[in-house]
């Protein structure tokens, strides 16, 4: 399926004819298309985000090095001033320089605020929870795509760090599964957000949640020497995440079959779910493979090429890291991978034969 199809004239005039669009859609659409054209692609935004991050460190270096603030209260207050200033600056201007400046100043201000809270409270938990609260507030009030992406992802990282501090890494699965669910929900709710004109909130949060969740999921491939981890495992029992994500995959398949109006016989339905369950069981120790499948299905259903590229990229990176990880021995890994691979290839041939048989029946009738 190609991504480019009808043109705006045909599609929107038909919508207007069906009373789904106002009659003055034409000049508005023209102006909006010109504005859309000004928006930068994602990799340019990454460049901008990285530069702002770099600049924010230099600002922090300046503030700390030049001893502008000497007490924890002063650090906290300066942090608040910088963040508020950045939010106001970003709200009043869309200019490239102001946007970058505000982003860098805000990141520096946030770091100072958190540093101030850490000094003030002398508690790691309070510091992390304050950070989460601050990012949640900024997510709502700082109208910048790059910042919202960073806020959403950093909330997930902060929660993972908190689990590490509490020595409760068994709960890492809650983060992996719940944020995967949130991501699926955001993709499904996208049209409702767009209907309220909230794309600038939804889009960066959706990507931030995905980035944060995938980063935490990558921990399942990392092996750290027990001596370094004080006998804690970084990602214990990865199969728990595997099963949780597997259930999400099953739900997604169910929703897709329902929403796309596929007419399946009961035998076909049973074969579909049985294959999914087999794939889930075989790849439960490699939960990243199931997550890649979830993203890929969503990307295809929504005709979102970026989402599909992320799924393919993550699949490759996860598979490579899984290959080198030493949690499982190579023989077990090879059996798992060959098992899932052979199952998928066999499923493909089964599908081919089934479709050919169906075609023959239709021709005979």
């Amino acid at each position, binding site marked *: *399926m190609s*991504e480019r*199809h*009808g*043109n*705006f004239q*045909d599609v929107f005039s038909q*919508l207007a004819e069906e009373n*789904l*669009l*106002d009659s003055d*859609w034409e000049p508005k*659409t*023209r102006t909006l*298309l010109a*504005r*859309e*054209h000004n928006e*930068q*692609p994602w990799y*340019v935004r*990454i460049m901008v985000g*990285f*530069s702002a991050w*770099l*600049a*924010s460190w*230099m*600002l922090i*270096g*300046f503030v700390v090095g*030049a001893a502008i603030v000497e007490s924890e209260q002063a650090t906290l207050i300066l942090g608040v001033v910088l963040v508020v200033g950045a939010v106001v600056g970003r709200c009043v201007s869309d200019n490239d*320089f102001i946007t*970058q400046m505000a982003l*860098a100043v805000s990141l520096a201000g946030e770091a100072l605020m958190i540093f101030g809270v850490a000094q003030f409270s002398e508690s790691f938990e309070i510091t992390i929870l304050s950070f989460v609260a601050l990012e949640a507030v900024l997510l709502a009030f700082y109208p910048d795509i790059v910042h919202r992406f960073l806020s959403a992802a950093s909330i997930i990282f902060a929660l993972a760090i908190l689990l590490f501090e509490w020595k409760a890494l068994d709960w890492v699965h809650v983060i992996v599964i719940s944020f995967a669910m949130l991501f699926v929900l955001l993709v499904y709710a*996208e*049209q409702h*957000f*767009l*209907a309220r*004109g909230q*794309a*600038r909130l939804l889009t960066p949060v959706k990507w931030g949640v995905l980035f944060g969740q995938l980063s935490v999921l990558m921990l399942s491939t990392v092996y750290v020497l027990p001596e370094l981890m004080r006998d804690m495992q970084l990602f214990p029992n990865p199969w728990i995440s595997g099963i949780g994500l597997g259930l999400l995959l099953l739900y997604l398949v169910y929703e897709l079959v329902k929403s*796309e109006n*596929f007419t399946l016989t009961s035998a076909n339905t049973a074969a579909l779910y049985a294959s999914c369950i087999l794939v889930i069981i075989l790849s439960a120790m490699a939960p990243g493979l199931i997550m890649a499948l979830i993203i890929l299905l969503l990307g*295809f259903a929504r*005709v979102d090429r970026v989402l599909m590229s992320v799924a393919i990229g993550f*699949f490759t990176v996860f*598979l490579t890291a899984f290959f080198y990880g030493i949690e499982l*021995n*190579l023989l077990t*890994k*090879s059996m798992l*991978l060959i*098992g899932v*691979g*052979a*199952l998928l*290839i066999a499923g493909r041939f089964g599908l081919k034969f089934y*479709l050919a048989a169906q075609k023959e029946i239709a021709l005979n009738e």
Partner: protein
Amino acid sequence: MAKQKLSAIPVTTRRLKHIANELKLSVSAQQRAFELAGLKPDRAAWLQFVDRLMLISGAALTVVGVMAFFAYNWAELHKAAKFILIEGALVAAVVVAYFRGVDKLSGKAALFAAAVFTGVLLAVYGQTYQTGADPYGLFLTWAILISGWALIGRNPGLWLLLLVLANLSLILYWTQLVHPEDWSRGLATELGPFAGITYSLTDFALAQWVCALNAFALVSWEFFQRRELHWMRGRSFPRIIAVFALVPIAISTLIFIFAMGAEYYWGIRYVSPVLFAIFTLLALYYYSKKLLDMFILAVSLLALIVIVTSLLARVIHSGFEMFFLLSILVIGQSAAAAHWLRKVRKSWEAQA
């Protein structure tokens, strides 16, 4: 775009979402618009997608599984059985590729699998007979053996595999034969093969050779791509090669900047910044004037910002005020870069 007729502007997912958001189109209107624009996969599209998904992911997982199986070096398995298994898989993959044809997806997947199995066969041979050959020899032989398939395969994935093997051969040749004694590299390798390879790029001469190799591959790809070869149309491959070429020389240039004057780095170190400047400037010129590629432009600009800022940080010695100056400079550079990228895109649109 503002002057273009609406009938000449194709509806894409991104554009439609943007318009839907700005006009606050109802959910039902959005769904209908996606339907009318053909942006909703139908039954045939779903079947094709599922078919491809199962074939490609199934083949990828099986190939990696086979690699893991032989990497395990199962002692109980007789050497003859190992050879029969891997050679059987290799022959089967080649037969499938031959009968399906290299233009079909299944043929492409089979040929790629055969190329990977060739490397596994060489590794099993090395394991079994303990040839004592240096590992670079394995990658080089592998690359030479599959180069014929890359030539006939019309598959960017095969070319990427060949290029990765060429890079590995060069890096391992350098670290094992030219400069074998480096305890710090050995330490980095302990952290994993990726860390070891990345660390080895801190060697000036090696980084320069790696950059030259990938730059040559990039230039060759762009040259042949202009000859309207349909399988070379995708931009993923040249983008990956551009990153392969830029990263080593950028690392090398950063080391040059921060280690200026250090005895250890005497020699051909001056070549790195020169090579970096030539590569980025040529990339910025070519991909803004001759062929628009915003990704390579953005990556080149980011590398340039990092290098220019590092150079100024090294040159300016004026206490902590320097940090403030540098932060403003970084912000100014990235704002200018974003502005220029937008201008480049608009100029291409105007020409179209």
